[in-house]
């Protein structure tokens, strides 16, 4: 098989131009490349989120995949219903995909998701994590990082973000992966891996959001890279319990130094007033996270 590059990726577009995403939307990049990897035989279900808006308002739509919009907390249950209906009708070859935001996943939707994962429902769950309720005006979610200002924590959040991929890994599902739209080849490959597996597969995407995070839209890809290079967000996959790092995260795991978090923090207006103390706390959070990776034996190279 030819090595996958930006040039050898399939030409077919499932996301049409003229959608309603914001300028510089990280979700658009992930959505476009993710759908290419998922291919033709897919049914999506989407809760209240930016994606609802991106896909367009009745009676027009900007995508070429069938989609059932559903209530905020129901993505995984909705996917389970689509799966059950398709199975009952003998349409087992269709891939069912739930695609929700971080609020819809780690806050209001975690119950239905945990239930579906416990049942090992055969579907792919995608959480696009822009670290807050960005579609409703930038409110805090369980996935907002420490120190970030949102409209419901105007002085900066006082708690660290929930580790959603590890919560999902604790369900012992066949596949958990973290993905960044700044690394589209890695994104495409992980979507493809997920597609060819059975059972509950969970992909966690860190999605830079210009209006929510406060940076110039042209820097979306750069901000996404900075998050990975400083170790705030790490690229890995867990197959049947085994964690493997990818790309820059693999290099960090094998001894390359991480960038300091400060540059990443200072590049975003949501951290505009944070003191050096907060920067140090975030650095400490990252350091501890990487220490625990080491303790768990994830950083050993094969």
């Amino acid at each position, binding site marked *: 098989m030819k090595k996958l590059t930006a040039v050898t990726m399939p030409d077919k577009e499932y996301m049409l131009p003229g959608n309603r995403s914001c300028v510089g939307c990280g979700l658009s990049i992930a959505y476009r490349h993710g759908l290419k990897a998922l291919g033709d035989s897919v049914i999506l279900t989407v809760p209240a989120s930016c994606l609802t808006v991106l896909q367009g308002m*009745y009676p027009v739509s900007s995508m070429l995949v*069938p989609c059932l919009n559903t209530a905020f907390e*129901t993505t995984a249950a909705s*996917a389970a*219903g689509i799966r*059950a*209906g398709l199975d009952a009708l003998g349409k087992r070859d269709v891939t069912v995909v739930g695609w929700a935001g971080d609020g819809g996943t780690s806050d209001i939707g975690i119950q*239905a998701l945990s239930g579906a994962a416990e049942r090992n429902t055969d579907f792919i769950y995608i959480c696009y994590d822009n670290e807050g309720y960005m579609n409703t005006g930038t409110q805090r979610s369980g996935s907002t990082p420490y120190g970030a200002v949102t409209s419901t924590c105007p002085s900066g959040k006082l708690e660290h973000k929930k580790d959603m991929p590890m919560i999902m890994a604790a369900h012992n599902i066949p596949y958990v992966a973290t993905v960044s739209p700044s690394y589209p080849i890695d994104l495409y490959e992980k979507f493809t891996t997920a597609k060819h597996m059975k059972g509950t597969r969970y992909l966690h995407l860190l999605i830079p959001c210009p209006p929510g995070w406060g940076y110039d839209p042209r820097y979306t890809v750069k901000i996404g890279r900075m998050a990975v290079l400083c170790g705030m967000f790490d690229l890995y996959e867990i197959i049947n319990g085994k964690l493997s790092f990818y790309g820059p995260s693999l290099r960090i795991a094998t001894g390359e130094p991480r960038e300091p978090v400060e540059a990443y923090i200072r590049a975003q207006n949501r951290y505009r007033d944070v003191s050096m103390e907060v920067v140090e706390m975030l650095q400490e959070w990252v350091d501890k996270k990487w220490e625990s990776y080491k303790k768990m034996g994830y950083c050993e190279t094969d």
Partner: protein
Amino acid sequence: MSIEKKGDCMTCAEKVLIMTGNHAAAYAVKLCDVQVISAYPITPQSPVVEKLMEFVESGEMKAEYVAVESEHSAITVCISASVVGARVFTASCANGLALMHEMLHWAAGTRLPIVMAIPNRAVAAPWNILNDQQDSISQRDTGWMQIYCRNNQEILDTVIQAYRIAETVMAPVMVCYDGYVLSHTLMPVNMPDEKLVREYLPPYRPHTVLDPKSPRNINPVTLADPRMNAEGVLCHGYMELRSLLQKSLLGSVSVVAEAGREFGRIFGREYGIYDSYRTEDADLLMVSIGSLASEAMDTVDNMRAAGMKIGVMHLRLYRPFPAEVIAKAVRETGCRGVAVLEKNVSYGYEGAVCSDLKAALFDHGVDVFAHSYILGLGGRNVSVSDIEEALNRSYGYLEKKGPDRIKGQEWINCRV
């Protein structure tokens, strides 16, 4: 547990089984070839879904059973499975039904023919697991149809009719029956022949199928006003779509009537919009929903024997509210007053059925009084004397005129 007994039906040889109301609902679901079942256990609904799980695991029934982690997910699974083209079923009550509330709107708004069995139970707080009808009555404004049953045979027959009705109207249907009073009480039930059920109920044909071969975006954001599509055709706004649901529901009274008539033709048991007992020449009419109307027949016999002209009307169809049919039926009895006895309250006013009935009578110029009586909440026993007490009170108003006939709602056998 079901005990087999030989028996005959009017038009076909039907087996007679002794079973609870919950099992009657489960047997009906099996007869309807339901393809996806999803439910979460709650007392007194659990035996419905336990029986269905037995059918599925034994291979007696070919269906997907999704054992979800909440009622909210149960109804969501039903919605999505119905969208891809499967015939679906769920059952719940009380707090579980209340948890479903948001998705009940989604089910009706998506125009899905979901059928749900509801063994009616009181809603907390405080905790109570026994029977009243507050749970389903509290869901009356969600766009679901509601049919109430008086006995276990009606439960089985109504579930079968519910699929036919739902798939004709393209609206979901709740089949409601009193928890314990029917759900856990053994009664003889005639089991319809499965071939005849298939004749009565053709396979489900969805109005829209979610299929990768013809991608659609179902239930996207829809603005209030109509909007042009890519071909320049003006399409409905939110308000038009909601109005179509209302129009279908209002027009569905005749669908329910037809489904009941046709059921009678095939199975020998005809069903209508309402049931009457000794209503001819009645001065006072007792109106109720569910098993209370059944129990009231004995009371009425006693009171008739004592010279009081009283009849009973059971409202089988509560949503859509068959205003015209009921007003006409009340007028035709020539009664002067109606006493509505019900196991629910619209808190801050009166029994919900009473309010609806009053509105229907007012609209259709039927000049009778209608009094609201609340009884049997949280499983409080309703005795013959309780029903008698309510009817006696209203009977005393028959000679009154004008505003003197008006009376506030009363709670029977409540010691506050």
